């Protein structure tokens, strides 16, 4: 097989400046091939968004210590200079954010914003850029696209704004699209429309997508593979089917079992994971999930589990993984 499009090795990200460093990402490895959709699933503070931002070098450089290697399309992302980084962002990799109202510039129309990005990146005229913007608006199915190009972000509804944000992200024909909770701020009936749009664009344009979400249902709708993150590490990764049907890390198992769903008996109680996620400024030794884990043994408090393959493509970081299969 060819070299993966995105290859991350041993990524760590710490935020400095506080009394002790906040260790947001603690050794993430991931690989993504062209045309593949990968979901990073986790709760707040699990390091999923920070990992995504690291790929684009969006974390504030002065306050952040980043280690490890990130290669995207053969380029060493950590070594890019300012100018190269400008070309890299948007052209190789681009991002869709959770809150398009904040990510878009409020004082320019959407047409102007997209045309400017195209003009700068590709050295074409503004008129040429606007033509691309119109094509993109049609592509993301914005009704009456010609008229909407002259709209300001505040004049659009949440779903339309997110479509426009996706059009902007695609304006320079990136190979990899990063999506940071792009549907979390949307209503349910709009969320499914955006998920289907992303799936369709991914297929038609052959994009590689990394999709960050806290919602396992959303991950199942869009992803080929899921990586479950906890305390800055990927604790389990595998094909969507394997993660849903044969979750092997106690945290993944707990997450799936604690979900409220229609099949539950009235008045039944949910199975829960006790406690709350750890303080990233003060991570426990050993497995960070051990204090909440019902299967934890003494060893879990001291030994950091290494990744173990449980089946083809499904990798789990848990010391007891072999013994848990039966549970």
């Amino acid at each position: 097989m060819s070299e993966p499009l995105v290859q991350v090795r041993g990524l760590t990200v710490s935020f400095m400046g506080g009394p002790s460093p906040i260790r947001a990402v603690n050794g993430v490895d991931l690989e993504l091939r062209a045309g593949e959709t990968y979901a990073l699933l986790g709760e707040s503070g699990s390091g999923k968004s920070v990992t995504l931002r690291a790929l684009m070098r969006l974390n504030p450089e002065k306050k952040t210590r980043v280690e490890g290697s990130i290669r995207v399309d053969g380029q060493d992302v950590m070594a890019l200079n300012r100018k190269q980084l400008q070309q890299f962002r948007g052209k190789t990799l681009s991002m869709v954010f959770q809150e398009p109202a904040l990510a878009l510039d409020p004082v320019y129309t959407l047409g102007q914003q997209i045309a400017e990005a195209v003009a700068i990146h590709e050295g074409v005229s503004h008129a040429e850029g606007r033509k691309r913007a119109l094509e993109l608006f049609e592509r993301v199915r914005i009704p009456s696209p010609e008229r909407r190009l002259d709209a300001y972000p505040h004049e659009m509804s949440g779903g339309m704004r997110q479509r426009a944000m996706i059009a902007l992200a695609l304006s320079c024909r990136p190979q990899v699209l990063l999506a940071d909770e792009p549907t979390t701020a949307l209503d349910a009936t709009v969320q499914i429309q955006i998920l289907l749009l992303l799936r369709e664009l991914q297929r038609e344009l052959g994009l590689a997508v990394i999709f960050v979400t806290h919602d396992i249902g959303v991950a199942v709708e869009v992803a080929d593979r899921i990586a479950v993150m906890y305390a800055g590490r990927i604790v389990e990764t595998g094909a969507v089917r394997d993660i849903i049907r044969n979750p092997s890390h106690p945290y993944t198992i707990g997450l799936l079992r604690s979900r409220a769903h229609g099949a539950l008996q009235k008045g039944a109680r949910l199975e829960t994971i006790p406690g709350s996620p750890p303080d990233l400024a003060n991570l426990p030794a050993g497995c960070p999930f051990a204090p909440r884990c019902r299967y934890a043994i003494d060893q879990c408090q001291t030994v950091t589990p290494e990744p173990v393959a449980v089946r083809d493509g499904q990798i789990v970081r848990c010391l007891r993984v072999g013994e848990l299969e039966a549970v």
Partner: protein
Amino acid sequence: MSAAAPLDRGGPAQPLLTVRGLVKHFAVKGSLFGAKAMVRAVDGVDFEILKGETLGVVGESGCGKSTTARLLMHLIEPDAGTLIFDGETVGDGGLTMREFRRQVQMVFQDSYASLNPRLTVEASIAFGPQVHGVQARQAVDRAHGLLDRVGLDPSRFAGRYPHELSGGQRQRVNIARALALQPRLLILDEAVSALDKSVEAQVLNLLLDLKEEFGLTYLFISHDLNVVRFMSDRVAVMYLGKMAEIGPAGAVFDKAAHPYSAALTRSMPSMDPDHRTEEAPIAGDPPNPINPPTGCRFHTRCTFAESVCSTRVPALDPVGPEGGPSHLAACLMHEPGSGHSKAEAS
């Protein structure tokens, strides 16, 4: 708890809260030429909350579910509408607002913003009872008992300030505070929405336990349909300030009578990698509540809409024998003689 259970006046058949004709319009800045626009946030809503049930309320942003909750508590003054609490009219010489608020308490989404940052957890919980005439000493004792009950050890947590707690712990404090006045109805407005999934499940279980233990009634508002289904006996679906459908949770989710409720349930992610959603149940965004569509407000997005739907306002009526009188929907397809081709002739 120390005090006796609150008096049940009307008996079990009397709804705990009856809401009639609730209306709230907000004026917004008009255009340059002065025409004043109105957001019709809640536009004539009727429903009942039965004793001991959990009534779930679902709907998209702008549907008026949170405004309804705030109107019930008179955190916003309604423009019109009557509240009847256990047979007594609220205000107008009936039940006083002070007494009503003792019996109806609310938990909000933002656990941090709803606590006073300068008060310890214990002081926050004891504050309400003291205002209502409980001795300081007793109020603090009650606060400790409640902290213990919501899973926070009073010896560790009573003296803490809100910023020293996690989101899940803060929401437990908010629940304890709401219970401090021994209310009968708890309004939970997106009370678990800001919590992480693993913590959300803990709080939902706690709410179920407390309901049994204290004989509470819940109005449970959430945008998360899975959670509403899990919690609720009956479910109300709102759309642009109107009630679209209300009925037993199973009926509303599995045999929705209103096309909007059906679309909403089918918009939930499938959770099955082999049967992903292939088509969006409805297109477009919810329209702006400033100028809601005429007739049935859903007609602009409804696949069954006919010309009559843009002119005639559907009534909230019982929908057939399967649903029984407890299942109501506001859709012209279910209204005999409405002129919709799917409706029975009258």
